């Protein structure tokens, strides 16, 4: 099982650290692409949770499809193959059972996420990989059907599924389970939940400018932090793309040495051979940057995930604001009603009002009328008090659940990003080693001249 095994290896790495051999182990960066992919997944996903223990989940491949869309237009889109298999289905030494597979489009992932977002307002829902390539440097294609982009998105989608599947709450969701297992009828099942109506009404109230009187300081701070994080990560990604561009330039210009050395070698006697082979090393040097930057793109993807996470965090904050707002509105309403009742009871109209005028013009209300009004008010006050109680409980529950998840998220974030930084450092070391290697080779050639 992929996540488990990679988790083991990372634990080993951590356990070893401190010993002097550690650096050597870490620096052995000749990992194959699949291994490094595993590492990346490993850094992104928490280990050992309910669904993942029972089920192995992966997005195995991507494919292009052509079909007609809703307005009957021909379109090309990408579908992703979801593979699931029971985790304990592999007997010792036996071949694993054939996995259950089904195809999903990116838009279905989006639907799933929207559903989760609405259904679990107190949870920081894992983000999807970007719809369109952002923060690209010049060599990177922004085309949605570009194979590299599709591949990176495949990794991102798998990561999303593993994140949901490893989440203590989300992993138990029925719709999510159906998403993994039922190719047909899933969409209907989602829509049946009626989450959209909820989403619409919530969204409407969200779009209204909320003025919360007593915001929870913790949430305000969290919102502030996620704004900051959003700014700093997007800035980082922008600068990184430029750094990648420049680094690419530096390497590629060195490639010209390859050509010149080779041409020059033609007119030299003793120096010829050395120049010629040094030229080859310069070619190698120039070519090496492609892989280096390709690998670095994974790091950018890890950062991007947290960039998008900031939206999820902000969404939780907004929902908390909304609940707080509703609570405050209810409280205000109650205060108003109580005031009304008091007025009726004392019969005093403190301020000039239309009601005061009418009573003066048309005479006092009868005692019965007044009593029934008071009774109605009392009824509604009681309802209001209950509503407040309810809202209070809802709010408390929300805060508790949300804060639980926020704490879980913070721990996950710190761990993931630390590991991402470590793997970034490893990449840098690997780049340095490649550089040293190539230049040492070239030096040998120069020395023979």
């Amino acid at each position, binding site marked *: 099982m992929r996540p488990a095994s990679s988790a083991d290896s990372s634990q080993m790495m951590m356990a070893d650290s401190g010993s002097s051999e550690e650096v050597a182990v870490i620096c052995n960066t000749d990992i194959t692409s699949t291994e490094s992919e595993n590492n990346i997944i490993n850094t992104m996903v928490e280990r050992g949770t309910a669904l993942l223990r029972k089920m192995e989940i992966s997005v195995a491949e991507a494919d292009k499809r052509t079909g007609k869309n809703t307005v009957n237009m021909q379109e090309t889109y990408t579908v992703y193959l979801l593979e699931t298999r029971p985790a304990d289905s592999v007997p010792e030494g036996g071949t694993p059972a054939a996995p259950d597979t089904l195809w999903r489009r990116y838009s279905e992932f989006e639907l799933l996420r929207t559903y989760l977002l609405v259904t679990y307002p107190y949870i920081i829902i894992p983000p999807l990989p970007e719809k369109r390539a952002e923060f690209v440097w010049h060599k990177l294609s922004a085309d949605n059907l570009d194979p590299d982009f599709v591949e990176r998105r495949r990794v991102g989608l798998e990561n999303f599924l593993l994140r949901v599947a490893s989440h203590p709450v989300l992993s138990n969701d029925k719709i999510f389970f159906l998403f993994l297992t039922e190719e047909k009828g899933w969409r209907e099942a989602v829509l049946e939940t009626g989450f959209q109506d909820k989403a619409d009404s919530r969204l409407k109230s969200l779009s209204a400018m909320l003025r919360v009187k007593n915001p929870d300081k913790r949430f305000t701070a969290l919102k502030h932090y996620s704004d900051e994080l959003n700014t700093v990560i997007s800035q980082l990604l922008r600068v990184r793309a430029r750094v990648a561009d420049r680094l690419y330039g530096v390497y590629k210009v060195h490639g010209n040495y390859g050509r010149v050395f080779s041409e020059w070698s033609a007119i030299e006697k003793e120096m010829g051979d050395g120049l010629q082979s040094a030229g080859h090393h310069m070619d190698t040097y120039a070519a090496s940057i492609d892989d280096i930057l390709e690998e670095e793109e994974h790091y950018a993807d890890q950062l991007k995930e947290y960039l998008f996470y900031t939206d999820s965090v902000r969404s939780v904050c907004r929902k908390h604001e909304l609940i707080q707002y509703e609570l405050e509105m209810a409280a205000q309403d109650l205060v108003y009603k109580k005031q009304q009742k008091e007025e009726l009871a004392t019969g005093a109209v403190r301020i000039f009002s239309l009601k005061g005028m009418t009573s003066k013009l048309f005479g006092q209300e009868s005692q019965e009328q007044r009593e029934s009004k008071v009774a109605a008010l009392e009824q509604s006050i009681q309802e209001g008090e209950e509503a407040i109680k309810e809202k209070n409980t809802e709010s408390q529950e929300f805060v508790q659940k949300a804060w639980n998840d926020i704490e879980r998220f913070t721990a996950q974030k710190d761990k993931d990003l630390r590991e991402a930084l470590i793997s970034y450092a490893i990449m840098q070391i690997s780049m340095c080693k490649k550089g040293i290697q190539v230049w040492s080779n*070239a030096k040998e050639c120069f020395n023979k001249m």
Partner: protein
Amino acid sequence: MSVSAPRGLASSGQKLITEILHPLSAAEEQLSPGPDVSSSSSSSSSVGGGKQEPGLTNGTPVEMSNPAPASQLLNRLQLDDDLDADAQDLTETRDLFVTVDDPKKHVSTMETYITYRVSTKTTRIEFDLPEYSVRRRYQDFDWLRTKLEDSQPTHLIPPLPEKFVMKGVVDRFSEDFVETRMKALDKFLKRVADHPVLSFNPHLNAFLTAKDLNKRQGLALLTKVGESVKQVAGGYKLRPRPVEFCAMGEYLDTFSQKLGTLDRIAQRILKEQSEYLTELREYGAVYSSWAGSEEQLQRPLEGVAGCVTTCCGALEDASENMSQDFLPVLREYVLYIESMKNVLRKRDQTQAEYEGRLEAAILHKQEDRTPIPVEVERCQDKVECFNADLKADWERWQRNKRQDFKQLLTGMADKNINYYEKCQAAWESLITVLQDKQTEDKTSETN
């Protein structure tokens, strides 16, 4: 340069004019932004740098305060000669050591100029004292070179750095410019002093020892010679060069093309590196500012920022090395090629003179049946001497070139290796820190 005009005109008739012009014009093209190129390194970054790499110069312009580079260069040169197996005997029998250093600025009412200290140590009997130390300015070097060229026309005279007076483009008194020029002058003088023939030239002796150089005469002579050369060039129709000299000419053409390309590549790399450096600095700064808004991640992020800063420093050093050491050598060889071509042309003229006279004598002989006159034979001797000198110098030059480029390119490789090693060390230490932190967390969790 006053000499370049006659040189251009004197191009031999047999060679395709374009073929000869191309490298020349290429060289000239570099001449015009040349000042910065020649002054290389630092000034190249300061001039060209106006538009491309302000970052590089700002970092470490003050080389002169630090005596290391000069002595490094000295060591390098000596090492270089020691390494040269072919020049082994020469090293053993070497008895003339010269150094150019300690530039000083002189300000008078008329002009402002720089002088350099020229120190000599020798055991040669031509010198009265074992040691000399005099101060010379660029003009004096120019005088010496002209004198050498004049009195030793059959030899390859090493090039001087460009005269170059484009005021306002390059600050001639900037430390970078002076430093680079000083290195080039040092190189020039060392090459002359190491030459088996040139080093015995009395003008060199005067240059190294005299308190005051009497240069007037020399300068006047130069213009005269220049003109006469021009006349000779125009007057004769040249026969094809002998194959070996043709090959030299062709070699020089191709080589200067390649040097031009190398120079452009190196400049371009410097430009790319400086742009990379700019972005990288900002990149590091973003990590620092991120660290400010994190608790657990503060140290890791600060660590990354620190690493990026270290890499910036390493890159800066590498770029500076390249512009200080790499580009000047390319520059020197571009000029060297010009000198070499000039000698080749002079050889052609000598040959042409001989052939002209010979033809005339043969005609004469057929009419008068008189023996071939002595002047013609003398001319023939002159051509043969010229050929022999030129071949010897050519061999010498090839040996030096091989040695210089071997050293230049291995140096470049070393610098790159060094750069990567510094970066690698930084990132490795970061990983150790990050993982130590992680185990700390782990243990504190389990406790």
